[in-house]
């Protein structure tokens, strides 16, 4: 069987001399020996991955989210919530989107700006209409054994956006680094 290779791209502006310390763990632990691009920027950092449709990918993205959120300075509870939201988004992409299809990939990016942590998770599945997802808090659904993933993502993040890619779905999860000001 062909061995798939995860791809990582780290973007930090213009310098390509050395990998910055931010997220180096991810590259060290996951992608040692794989090609990566590193650029430097003082205000924004971004790392993106292409992963196969497996539970291993879900765990990798959860760990990355935890690390990125910690480095962005979020408190312990928020780090847990961001990591959990990303895990749910990754499960959605791998399980419900790509249905473990080995020919389909999940892409994810983590962007830290001065204001926010922005995470995008994309699958190549048939598409997800968030309006069709039953409310897991409704009395008729409360004892269902599934269907709480999107709800938890929305509960833990400040903004959640869905975009249809035809085929595929992109989920954008945003956590503010500081409280949003009223009226902004």
């Amino acid at each position, binding site marked *: 069987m062909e061995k798939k290779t995860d791809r990582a791209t780290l973007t930090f502006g213009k310098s390509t001399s050395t990998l910055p310390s931010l997220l180096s763990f991810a590259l060290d632990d996951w992608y040692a020996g794989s090609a990566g691009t590193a650029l430097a920027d003082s205000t924004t950092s971004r790392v993106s991955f292409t992963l196969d449709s497996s539970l291993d990918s879900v765990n990798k993205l959860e760990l990355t989210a935890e690390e990125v959120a910690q480095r962005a300075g979020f408190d312990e509870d928020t780090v847990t919530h961001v990591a959990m939201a990303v895990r749910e988004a990754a499960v959605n992409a791998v399980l419900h989107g790509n249905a473990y299809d080995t020919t389909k990939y999940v892409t994810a990016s983590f962007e830290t700006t001065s204001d926010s942590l922005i995470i995008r998770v994309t699958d190549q599945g048939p598409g997800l209409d968030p309006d069709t997802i039953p409310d897991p808090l409704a009395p008729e659904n409360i004892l269902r054994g599934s269907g709480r993933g999107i709800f*938890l993502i929305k509960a833990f993040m400040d903004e959640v956006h869905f975009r249809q890619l035809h085929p595929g779905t992109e989920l954008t999860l945003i956590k503010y680094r500081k409280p949003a000001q009223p009226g902004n």
Partner: protein
Amino acid sequence: MSMKVQTRQVDGVTILDLSGRITLGEGSVTIRDAVRDVLAKGSNKILLNLAEISYIDSSGIGELVSAFTTVKNSGGELKLLNLTKKVHDLLQITKLYTVFDVREDEASAVSSFNK
């Protein structure tokens, strides 16, 4: 990161001491199998001790709900013991805290089952 289950009997109640993570592909199936095993052996008074559960995701929550309904449908009772803060908060957010019978003391939890 996998989940472990230790089973013990106290006054006719089967206590499952769970540790680790209850997530898709890890603890979810383990819980399902453990509860089915208890029911197959003729016991339907089950106390899930979650004191050592470090993490649970939506799949794990769903598995707890499924275990609850499976035991209830068999005429038994499934209760939760010693929730960590993370699990407690998740059950609150998902409005499941009041669905489950959640206990903080093992002795009183055991005595709360119908005899």
